């Protein structure tokens, strides 16, 4: 609990409608996009001005009160899960686009601006903001920076870190830092790379300047159907090796297709075991050439059907289905648990086979949605939270999938972040030396550990505990650490 004295201090710097204290008002903030983890916050602050944010940070710093930051609450790793005794600080009211400079191709925005709103505002200049996480309609740019969000166009256009020019942040010690600039580089260390994806552990973002790209002259989406998911996986590698760098290369399996089709009516082939969506963009000529090449490669890889979107409307539908695939899976089961592992593309067929076996072993269905071009898997484990024990089963299944990814040389998270959800798997991916270095970085910015405590980087003790439960191949991980 937060001491009444601290609440009173917060009340002295925030108007009443900027501070929520009643349980009734707090409960809706107990979770973000990952509802399996819930914790009612002690207090929610909804500041309207930067001075209010500064005051909140000052009060928290002086009193040793932790802070958890929140944007639109669309994250799916529990990064915005409230922590006991902490202030939940929601930045949603900072939702203004401050300026768009069409000549220099950049937009300066407040952190609560929605990802898609930037592209909408840039559209009159034929420009757009490239990273497009599936939740782009709702997720905020501040959250994108915190998570280093990706999207369906990462392979060609990169993640958030590749598309942000500058951020203005506030540290818990009250230092306001401008990191990066409107130029393409800055003197000193690349703190922009360090803070992007730091999951609200190092500082709070007050302003973001993003790079805008010219809209490609033409985009075209090719849809391919496969009667075997392994063949679909192999086709992904074939497209890349064929010298085409698609703007997006996505794969969905039968269950995901079924759910997405029910929402978007995109005309996906419902009898296919897997479909690939390949988007190519560029000039008229490039697109024509690439479409021809992609079609040939897909047919050679065993596609049973290859379709090119007839017009822009059909392209939009193809993507609408894909982008809504996660929540659309809500039509198949009351709850789903979304994973986010990455693997080298070549491992795709193997991993898929192994995942099917795991699905049988855990007796839970899994719908697969992938950013296949990036080797980024989003298996959606279907379960029913109202059934006792089923969430725990889903969680174990998920842990197995992530460890499978690490075993294939991949990562436990491609774009969703570690948050609270994958904190144990961090111990599988990293050794104690690296985790120690992460704690060192954290200490540089937040020596008292007040920002989003308990997230993103596990303590070594936590790893020792988790390691004790996961003795692999007779080798005890973190054998050097004391256990309790």
């Amino acid at each position, binding site marked *: 609990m937060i001491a009444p004295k601290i609440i009173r201090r917060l009340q002295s710097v925030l108007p009443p*409608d900027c501070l*929520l204290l*009643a*349980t*009734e*008002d707090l*409960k*809706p*903030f107990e*979770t*973000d*996009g990952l*509802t399996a983890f819930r914790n009612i916050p002690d207090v929610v602050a*909804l500041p309207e001005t930067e001075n209010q944010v500064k005051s909140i940070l000052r009060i928290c710093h002086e009193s040793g009160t932790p802070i958890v930051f929140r944007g*639109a*609450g*669309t994250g799916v790793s529990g990064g915005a899960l409230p922590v006991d005794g902490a202030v939940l600080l*929601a930045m*949603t*009211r900072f*939702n203004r686009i401050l300026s768009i400079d069409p000549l220099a191709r950049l937009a300066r925005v407040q952190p*609560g601006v*929605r990802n*898609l709103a930037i592209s*909408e505002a840039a559209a009159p200049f034929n420009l757009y903001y490239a990273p497009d996480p599936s*939740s782009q*309609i*709702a*997720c905020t740019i501040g959250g994108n920076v915190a998570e280093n969000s990706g999207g369906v166009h990462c392979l060609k256009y990169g993640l958030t870190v590749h598309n942000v020019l500058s951020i203005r942040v506030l540290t818990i010690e009250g230092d306001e830092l401008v990191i990066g600039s409107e130029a393409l580089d800055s003197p000193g260390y690349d703190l922009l790379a360090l803070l992007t994806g730091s999951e609200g552990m190092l500082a709070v973002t007050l302003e973001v300047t993003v790079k805008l790209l010219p809209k490609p002259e033409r985009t075209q989406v090719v849809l391919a159907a496969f009667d075997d998911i392994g063949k679909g996986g192999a086709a992904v590698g074939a497209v890349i090796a064929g010298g085409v760098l698609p703007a997006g290369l996505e794969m969905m399996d039968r269950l995901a297709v079924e759910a997405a089709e*029910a*929402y978007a009516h995109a005309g996906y082939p419902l009898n296919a075991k897997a479909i690939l969506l390949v988007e190519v963009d560029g000039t008229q000529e490039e697109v024509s050439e690439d479409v021809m090449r992609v079609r040939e490669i897909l047919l050679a890889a065993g596609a049973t059907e290859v379709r090119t979107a007839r017009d822009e409307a059909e392209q939009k539908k193809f993507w609408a289905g894909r982008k*809504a*695939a*996660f*929540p*659309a*899976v*809500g*039509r198949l089961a*009351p*709850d*789903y648990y979304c994973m986010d592992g990455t693997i080298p593309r070549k491992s795709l067929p193997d991993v898929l086979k192994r995942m099917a076996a795991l699905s049988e072993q855990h007796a839970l269905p899994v719908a697969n949605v992938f950013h296949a071009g990036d080797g980024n898997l989003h298996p959606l484990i279907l379960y029913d*939270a*109202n059934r006792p024990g089923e969430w725990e089963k889903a969680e174990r299944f998920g842990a197995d999938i992530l460890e499978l990814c690490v075993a294939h040389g991949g990562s436990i998270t491609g774009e969703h972040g570690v948050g609270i959800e994958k904190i144990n798997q961090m111990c599988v991916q990293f050794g104690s030396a690296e985790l120690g270095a992460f704690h060192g970085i954290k200490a540089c910015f937040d020596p008292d550990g007040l920002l989003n405590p308990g997230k993103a980087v596990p303590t070594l003790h936590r790893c020792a505990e988790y390691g004790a439960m996961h003795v692999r191949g007779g080798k005890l991980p973190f054998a050097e650490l004391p256990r309790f």
Partner: protein
Amino acid sequence: MQTQLADSLKDTPEGREADRILRTCVHCGFCLATCPTYQILGDELDSPRGRIYLMKQMLEGAAVTNRTLTHLDRCLTCRNCETTCPSGVEYGKLLDIGRKLAESKVARPLSQQLQRKALATMLPQKKLFGGLLKLGRMAKPFLPATLSLKIPPSPLSRQGREAITPHARKMLVLAGCVQPALAPQINEAATRVLDGIGISLIEAENAGCCGALSFHLNFQEQGLEAMRRNIDAWWPHVQAGAEAIMMTASGCGVTVKEYGHHLRHDSRYAEKAARISALTRDVSEVLLSEEAALRGWLARRGPRESSRVSFHAPCTLQHGQKITGVVEALLTVAGHTIMPVSESNLCCGSAGTYSLLEPDISSKLRDRKLGHLSAPQPDVIATANIGCLTHLQSGTPIPVRHWVELL
């Protein structure tokens, strides 16, 4: 989402329905993006996901206060969130249940009670409303600006009534409650166009308010009574072969299309209500299916002046009835130019009695909407619902018309 409904509710029909709807929500947050009140207020509690959570805890038996009621009151019921929701959460239906339950648990301040009672009683009665409106217009010069802006001027001088020949094809048309007094020219225009394509419109004697006004003010029984009255008024005509019940106000249209749902537990009316709902069509749907006849009539009639039109699709049309692009296409057929309008999915803030109950949020949304509608410098703003029409007109010198008047 995991749910654990209170014992007192979980086996009731409403409890089961609420549980079913809650369980489809996966808490993804997409709905925040298209919720008008969230855009203005930036508080999750004023978003669909926040309200769903508030209703969830209430349904799970947690104590509620007027905080929950306030956040539910602030919802415009525009149902933009339903259009956005990939999981298919029937938010509107959940809200009906939630509002009723909240109202039963929380006592409203007396002033609010009186205001809502007055609105629910007066507006649906067309004669009473018409009389009050006349009084209001006379008193307008003496009223403070905030109030006088809400009173629309008398309708423009009517075009002369053309002689209407009776046709074999007939459709019912709903006069509604406030529309005859505020804008009688709308149904006159609809009658003229339908006459042109060979369909007679008939108004049933005893039909009146569709029931939406009282129902959404949470006088649900009073609303249901209005629905039954309309069904009784229409039924003989339906049996006599009326093809459809045509709506010129999308707000009424969405409600009549849901009569079947609202009266599903009423053994006497359930079947009739379902049939009425199935027969109900917005005027745009009717004209779309008669497009050939419409083109013929337009050709016979000869060209009229073409206008630059900014179209505001009412929420009850685009989100409630999921009719999109139809009006724009029909106006284009009639020779008008449709101007591009940004944020076309957002509510104008009218939302039935909302503009009277939540004037601050409502006027912010209206001004935001008018900014987008007037940006392309149109000759006229068109819409498809009387509520939006008068609300928008109160904030702009650009004429706001029902689109059917432009045909």
